[in-house]
Each structure stands twice: as structure tokens, then as C-alpha cells.
């Protein structure tokens, strides 16, 4: 299905730009959601296996979260720019 057909469909059913922006942000949040979940899960496992390395793991975990989270947050900003 081409984009123009989708746009016509959207116009006919009363879907607004705001709605599409919100939906697209939702799509953009899937990846970082999976990423942070996996990252924190693995970190917790690492801390449980090696409690003495917990400090190092925690720093690296926050660093990784910050990088993964950037994608979701850029999506959040684009959401406000797009609507």
C-alpha cells in the first residue's frame, strides 16, 4: 500500500497529524524499551553473579541506559516538532 493511499485513508477516517505523531512515537519507543529491558536484566544478572563488581557494572549500566534512552528521547522531541 503506498503512502498516498494511507494518507487518503487517514483523512477519510479523521486521523490527525497529532494522532500520527503520537503513534509514531509509540513505535519509536519499542526498540529502546526492549534495549533497556535487556540491558538492565543482564546487569542484574552480572551483579548477582559477582556482587563485588556491582559498582563497576552499575556505572556501565547507566552509561548504556543513557545511550539507549537517547533514541526514545529524540523520538519524544520529534513528536513535539511533528504535531
Amino acid at each position: 500500500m503506498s503512502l498516498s493511499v494511507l494518507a487518503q485513508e487517514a483523512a477519510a477516517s479523521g486521523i490527525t497529524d497529532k494522532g500520527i505523531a503520537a503513534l509514531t512515537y509509540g513505535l519509536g519507543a519499542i526498540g529502546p524499551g526492549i534495549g533497556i529491558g535487556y540491558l538492565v536484566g543482564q546487569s542484574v544478572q552480572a551483579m548477582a553473579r559477582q556482587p563485588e563488581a556491582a559498582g563497576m557494572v552499575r556505572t556501565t549500566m547507566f552509561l548504556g541506559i543513557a545511550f539507549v534512552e537517547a533514541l526514545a528521547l529524540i523520538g519524544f522531541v520529534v513528536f513535539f516538532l511533528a504535531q
Partner: protein
Amino acid sequence: MILGLEFPPISHVTNWPEFALENSDYFGINKVVLIYGFAVLFTFLIFILGNKKQLVPTGAQNLAEISVEFIEDGIVMETIGPKGVKYTPLLMSFFFFVFFCNIFEIVPFIQMPATARIALPMFLALFAYVVYHGSGFIEHGPIGYIKHALIVPDVPIAMHLLLVPIEFVSKFLVQPFSHAVRLFANLLAGHILLVTFATLSSALWAKNAGLLILPLPAAAVVAFTAFELMVSFLQAYVFTLLAGVYIGAAISHEH
């Protein structure tokens, strides 16, 4: 309009009228500028109070010494290494300034994080940008630093055609952008979250409609306020940590 309730548009949530010097083109003072002032003041206070050199620290000196230890052991040593100790004051002022700007998000009657306006995160990120690239230039020399920053070691020669542009875009263009947007968007999101639930509670209260459902958004405001306390600390930490990582990457010698 969501569920029949009026939500303020986004510009009403973050724009504040000026209450002094309204007619000047450049120097209006509004709530956000006031928060900058408070944050600078408190950051200076931490430094001044920590400057007392009693052998057995008491009160504020205790707090200052714990925070220096936190920045030095938790951030500087982990990201830059022993030669990064000279960056501790810079990173500590980053941490406290950002933290105080963030924490006004949940201070009653102010309730606006200064970092939810892009101006401050952008300035801080550009400041950090100048610092880390500047220290890289000083450490390696101009040619050496460009080489250090752009060329990935131990890859086939042909791959450099692909890798050098990628490294250039990510290190010199995207890095300060994401550094600023990470802080900005987190705090803006938190602020909007609190505004949403506060608006919801007050609308339900005004409509006298739902004493049964009113406790839910009201409890959510309380819970999210606690959550935002954590976020404002964490984002200040992450901002400082990333500044440390970027400085560490710029002045490291091993590949």
C-alpha cells in the same frame, strides 16, 4: 481535550512571563532565569562550605566531602583514570548545577526544571564539547588529535572510507546534540507528566465529579514527584558521567 478535560498546550507549560526588565530585548528575568540564579548560588555554596578544612568534618563539610568522593571515585576514576583528577572541579560543578536546576521541578511553588528549556542543556553540552575537544587537542596536538578521533585502529585500509565519515559525524556533530537532548527531553517529559496528572486532579476536583476516581491521579502526582526526584538526580549523574566519558575518550592514549 482528553476525556473531556482541557489540557494546557505545550507552550503554556514551559514559557514563563518576565517579571523584571520586561521591555528589554535581551535581559528579561523570568522564572527560569531565577532558577539559574538559585542553582549557581547553591553550587557556589557547596564549594564554599567544602572549603573549610577541619580534620573531623561536620555538617555541610561532610556533605561536600562525600560529594567530592562520589564524583572522584564514581565518575572521574571510572571514566578518565588517575590523570583526570584535574577535571574533578569541572565535573562537580556540572553535577551540582544540573542537579539544582533539575530539582526545582519538584520544589513547591516553583515546579519548573530549568533544564526543560533547551537553552541550558545546549549551552552546557557545547561547553563540555569545547572542554573535551580542547583537552584532546592539547593532549595529542592538532593533527594527532584528528587522527586519534577519526581513525579506528586495526581495520583494513578500505574500511576507513566508510569509518572516518561515521566517526566524524558521531563525534563532532551528533555527540553534543544527544548530550543536550538527553537531559532536556528527560526533564521536559517529567514536567509534562506532572502537569498532566496535576491538571487531571484539579479538573476532577473542580467538576466535583469523581471522589471515587480522584484519589488515583492525586496519588499518581505524589508517586511521580518521588520518581522525578530520582530522575533529576540520575540525569545530573548521567550528564556528568557522559562528560567524563567524552573527556576520557579524547585524552586517552591506548587504542
